[in-house]
């Protein structure tokens, strides 16, 4: 125990100089375990990941490989069991105040209208109610919901709710965007539209993005770099692939380019065995559970 504390302090010193060139998110040798005693489950281990300011990173991997766990560690919602998380060169003490988080599930407050949901995001920053409302209206217009400001979440479609959540996250102007399969529950057309909307908004104001998805095509179409994770448990990063497709991109059209296919083939070669592993494991687990 004492030894690891010394280690941590030693590392912290090397991380301390907080200059502008420091990575927005830096995970160093991160391991995350759940449970205790004989029931310990290691979700991820030996994770080294770096996101530079303005860089769009997509994390892909088979289901249950701990992609979301990595995001939660970067958000400060989860404390890693081992290793460090550094945000712009500084160790993360608690919640990551410089990050915005877009959840896979519906995270809007159901008792607030679209406008109130977006405006409430400015309250912690001490913005007056009137100004918060004006700015929220502008944001809802940007995500194409000008006509729906007074709707409650249950009156909106899944895609519209995601737009509200996007506006809620971006209105605070966070320096890091963490997205956990945000478009997962949407249908294919809506996903494309949302992807393009996200790229437009991101191009206007480039932030570091960690975008988790299980859809490799989505990952390539969006990202500057695709990070591939192995099957869980104890998942790790097994490859990083730069995506040099030109921007601005159109999610639907970029898929038709030869370069896209080339990258897809390359990444899929390393991802396929992991997906099969995860699948086989799922079968095994199910068999064990039934026994």
């Amino acid at each position, binding site marked *: 125990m004492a030894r690891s504390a010394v280690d941590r302090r030693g590392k912290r010193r090397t991380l301390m100089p907080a200059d502008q060139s420091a990575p927005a998110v830096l995970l160093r040798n991160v391991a995350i375990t759940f449970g205790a005693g004989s029931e310990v489950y290691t979700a991820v281990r030996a994770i080294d990941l770096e996101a530079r300011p303005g860089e769009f990173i997509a994390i892909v991997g088979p289901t249950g490989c701990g992609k979301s766990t990595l995001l939660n560690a970067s*958000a400060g*919602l989860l404390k890693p069991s081992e290793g460090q998380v550094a945000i712009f060169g500084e160790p993360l003490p608690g*919640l*990551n*105040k410089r*990050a*915005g*988080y877009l*959840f896979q*599930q*519906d*995270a*809007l*407050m*159901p*008792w*607030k*209208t679209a406008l109130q949901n977006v405006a*409430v*995001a400015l*309250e*912690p*920053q001490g913005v007056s109610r009137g100004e918060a409302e004006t700015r929220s209206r502008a944001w809802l217009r940007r995500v194409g919901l000008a006509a729906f400001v007074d709707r*409650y*979440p*249950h009156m909106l479609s*899944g895609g519209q709710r995601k737009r509200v*959540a996007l506006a*809620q996250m971006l209105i*605070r102007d966070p320096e890091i965007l963490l997205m956990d399969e945000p478009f997962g529950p949407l249908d294919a057309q809506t996903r494309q539209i949302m992807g393009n909307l996200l790229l437009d908004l991101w191009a206007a104001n480039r932030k570091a993005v960690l975008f988790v998805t299980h859809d490799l095509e989505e990952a390539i179409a969006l990202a500057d770099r695709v990070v591939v994770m192995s099957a869980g448990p104890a998942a790790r990063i097994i490859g990083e692939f730069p995506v040099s497709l030109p921007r601005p991109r159109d999610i639907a059209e970029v898929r038709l380019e030869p370069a896209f296919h080339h990258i897809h083939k390359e990444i899929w070669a390393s991802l396929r065995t992991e997906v099969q592993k995860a699948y086989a494991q799922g079968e095994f687990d199910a068999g064990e559970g039934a026994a």
Partner: protein
Amino acid sequence: MRRARLLLLQIAVGLAFLLIWHVLTVYPILAPTRQAQFFFSTPLDVLARVWKEFASGEIWRHLGITLLETVLAFAFGAAGGILFGFLFARRELLAAVFDPYIKAANALPRVVLAPIFALWFGLGIWSKVALGFTLVFFIVFFNVYQGVREVSPVVLSNARMLGMNERQLLRHVYWPSALTWMFSSLHTSVGFALVGAVVGEYLGSSAGLGYKIHEAESVFDVTGVFAGMVILSVFVILIDLAVTLIERRLLVWRPGPSTNGQA
């Protein structure tokens, strides 16, 4: 069109019931009319008595007192339930320590407390308010407790990621969530406040609907008892209607039962 038909059928059931009651008590079919009327009165007599009560204006005072007791019992019970529900939900230890006592207190039939309350608070309205309080408190308490405990973890994480502090979380997340649960039991808790008031009056008082009914019973005035029951039922329906209106206003954000709200 369907609504009109439904209403017509509902009225028909009521009229049929009144008609059977009338025929059996006015004509000597099952028993001599005097005997039948002593035990069951007749619908026309009951209606006439209700009319007389309102015409003389005497009943308004009793209605007002029962209403006041109901409102006070609900207000105090809800306030206490909300306060303790929040406190226990946010302090694990407190909830764990008091758990058996709360269960025991809630299991107690409240009617046995009525004489004690009469002793402590006298025969005025406060003993009835106390009885209603013990009924309302636990319903609201359990619902608020549940509501705070079962806030969606994703909504909570999202709010925290937006940078909300404890006070803002309380205001924007815990409080609305707890209120939803409380309102889902609003009909029950308002009903129980009224039960507390009427039972309290019935067991010892000098005014209120419960008192009116008890007074009539003690002189075998069946017409008076039934008239009191009719007035009480109409009163309950009106209060329930008011609750529905309040609920509809406060829970506009909730998906209606017909619109298939997806979580």
